[in-house]
């Protein structure tokens, strides 16, 4: 990374000195650097494990006889697990995550789900994404038409007029936009690499662009039309962001060490944006491949190694380089997998599963009731913690947003994040 904090501080004072045309996110960051007031500095990263992660082989109930009995081929041996307490342990390939637990930077919430579990990938994912009200859940349905839970958070923050220059949330990844981020007034951008944030000069040379910007900066008449003023501010913000992005060169090695895999690249990109002074408070990314109906052991081991390694590298990077931006990573999947293994050495769609929370703001350790493997309903353990309770904790304790208007009612507060 060619862009150090020292350089950034230098830029910050210049920004403060110069103008009213600096985009909001830079201005706020500059204020923060100069020790002045800013709104919120916390970052939420949502990591979606797509396909239905096998929760029982992630946080393993190794002392439960039912686990050993119903998973003759797929159960994991006690000795290799990273034990969290005398009942559960992490999958052997989750070394990275274990390190975070040891540092007091990780928490697991067990038995998370919702009533009338839906075992369709689409529908269960949509339920997690839209966090529908109780009535909809009774019908076993998401509310596709209502927009995502994070979209509702974004819309609550500020009216669009005041945040035209800020990117409120960013999705890192390819393919369809997660429903969680759809439905807000300002569309959330999605990118796979930094290049997509770059501006094309098109036919213009540097001098012409400079003259173009100067013309806009000196345009005083635009104030007569508020929409025109917004268009002007936003156009200028594009150029300032472009200059900012120019300074991040992802090809240069920085001192942060990430494993070489796709998820690490994405979390690394998020870290670079945070380090470059992006004010964006919400990031979203996904890792696919968890639909392990057959030959699960190797596949699942590799996926979890990616997750653990990427998470620990990311947390270390951000904590070390941007201590002013505390991060929380919420890791979820649309459902867990069936307790009883199938005939193909895999597992089928299940219901309740653990949710992981990673970062320095967590109340570390194991939360929520252990899965009750003796009392299954339709072959699956019953949920004990409503996923919307986890969202409520993240909203109230991390994003400082009242959860009731977002989730339609209030939920009992889980003690998974440190208050304040």
């Amino acid at each position, binding site marked *: 990374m060619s862009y150090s904090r020292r350089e950034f501080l230098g830029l910050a004072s210049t920004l403060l000195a110069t103008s009213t045309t600096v*985009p909001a996110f830079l201005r706020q960051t500059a204020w923060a650097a100069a020790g002045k007031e800013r709104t919120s500095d916390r970052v939420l990263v949502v990591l979606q494990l797509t396909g239905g992660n096998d929760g029982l082989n992630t946080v393993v109930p190794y002392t439960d006889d039912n686990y050993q009995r119903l998973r003759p081929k797929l159960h994991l041996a006690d000795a290799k697990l990273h034990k969290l307490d005398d009942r559960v342990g992490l999958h052997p390939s989750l070394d990275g995550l274990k390190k975070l637990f040891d540092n007091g930077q990780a928490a697991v919430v067990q038995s998370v789900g919702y009533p009338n579990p839906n075992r369709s990938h689409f529908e269960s994912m949509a339920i997690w994404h839209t966090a529908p009200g109780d*009535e909809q859940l009774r*019908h076993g*349905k998401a*509310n*596709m*038409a*209502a*927009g995502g839970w994070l*979209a509702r958070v974004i819309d609550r923050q500020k009216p*669009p*007029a005041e*945040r*035209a*220059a*800020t*990117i409120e949330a960013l999705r890192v990844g390819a*393919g*369809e936009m997660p*429903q969680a981020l*759809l*439905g*807000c*007034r*300002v*569309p959330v*951008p999605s990118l796979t690499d930094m290049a997509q*944030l770059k*501006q*094309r*000069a*098109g*036919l*213009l040379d540097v001098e*012409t662009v400079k*003259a*173009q910007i*100067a*013309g*806009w900066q*000196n*345009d005083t*008449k*635009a104030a007569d*039309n*508020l*929409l*025109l003023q*917004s*268009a*002007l*501010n*936003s*156009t200028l*913000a*594009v150029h300032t*962001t*472009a200059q900012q992005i120019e300074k991040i060169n992802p090809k240069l090695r920085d001192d942060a060490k990430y494993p070489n895999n796709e998820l690490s690249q994405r979390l690394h990109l998020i870290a670079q944006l945070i380090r470059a002074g992006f004010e964006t408070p919400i990031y979203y990314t996904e890792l696919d491949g968890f639909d392990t109906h057959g030959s699960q052991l190797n596949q699942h081991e590799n996926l979890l190694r990616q997750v653990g390694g990427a998470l620990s590298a990311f947390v270390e990077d951000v904590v070390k380089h941007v201590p002013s931006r505390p991060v929380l990573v919420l890791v979820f999947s649309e459902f867990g997998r069936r307790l009883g293994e199938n005939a193909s050495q895999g597992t089928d769609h299940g219901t309740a599963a653990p949710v992981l929370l990673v970062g320095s703001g967590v109340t570390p350790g194991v939360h929520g009731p252990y899965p009750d493997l003796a009392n299954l309903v339709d072959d699956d353990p019953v949920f004990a913690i409503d996923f919307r309770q986890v969202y409520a904790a993240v909203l109230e304790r991390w994003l400082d947003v009242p959860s009731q208007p977002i989730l339609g009612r209030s939920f009992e507060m889980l003690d998974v994040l440190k208050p304040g």
Partner: protein
Amino acid sequence: MKKNNPWSPCEPTSKDPWDLRKVAHLHRRAGFGASWAELQRDLAEGPAESIERLLHPLAEDEQFRRVADALKQATGALRDNYAAPRDSRPARVWWLYRMAYGGDPLGEKLTLFWHNHFATGLRGVYNLRLMLEQNELFRQHARGKFGELLRAVESDRAMLVWLDGGSNRKEQPNENFARELLELFTLGTGNYTEADVRAAARGLTGWQQGRDNILNKTNEFSYQEELADTSTKTLLGQTGPWRRDDILRIVLEQPAAAMHLCRRLYRWFVSESAAPSDEFIAPLAAELRATNYSIEHVVGIMLRSRHFFSPNAYRQRVKSPVEFCVGAIRQLEPPRTPNLLTLVAMSCERQGQILFDPPSVKGWEGGRAWLNSNGMLMRLNWIAELLGGNSKAALPAYDPEKWAKEHALELSKAIESFCELLLQDDVSAATISQARELANGAKEKLPQALQVLLQAPEYQLA
């Protein structure tokens, strides 16, 4: 209507003549922007003829129809199978083709209005055929009677899937459609109670969704009298054994319904800056009710009005991504290369507007929400691509000299002509002088001058 009513027709005077600015404004709002020839024609013919032509266009050109039909075939919608949102790109290209090259821009603008009003998304419907069926329904009723459109929407298959009308049962009502009917489609918040939502949901029962031989839901729906809840219910103060036709009738009898629809039309055609008072909207709502909800009648009043041709309306809307991209194409008339509209569809997607997939049932927010910095970046990049070309996508660079030649314009004055075409007088002195300086320096720099004009903040406004 009274003479000094803001909705009385605009009558140009020598002080406030029918000029290029008015013609271009009319076309940006009633359509997607005008070509040079259209501007000159309507400038010569005057407001009455210009507006009449938009309201009552000629029958669809045969050749246009053939290409449009071929593009529609290519969407794959007829296969009638499962479709994810990404599968809609060919369908978006088909609709963009209609907007960019069709002879009924107002019809397409209204079709887009209804798509935004009854916002339905492929991501909940999962079937392109149903989405295109709904789109044709919007087109068919675009300027017709709102009541007829509403009845058609209530039994539209895409809507029955999207808002669960098909699973609204007497024993277990699903209020999804009923709620949006009252909140978004007709009355607006504050004009009904929760009890009205429940009553409407009960009255709208009667739909049965088909099942295939392994009991999966199909997209076939039938309305069955015996499934309808015919018990007595009270909706908006009226008590009776109401069923679907009664529900829609009672809703449209509310003065709030006409007010709500006129406000939506006002924001779409006149201004996003102002939230007009009830008194201001009331004359339009009265006209709407007096004509049994004729959309064409009220849109006609708006487009002819003094208010529409006043500073209260000029540049008081932000172009949506579709208006922005299609508008540039209608104005600049680049060659119709095969990938052009696919690139438009992709750029609109990046700017935050995916046709057939609005973000929620509320539609697109519009206005300043389009001007977020990421959307703006994608807009500026689109202009760079349109003018500079994209060799990977076989899009040639734009040739302004060719355009000038086609319209028999002097090359030495081309930049002035482009300025008239794109911005009329609504551009800052700095931008216009920079464009002139580039264009007058060397004729190779004409494309650069054009980029400066198209990237001006003023060009973002409709």
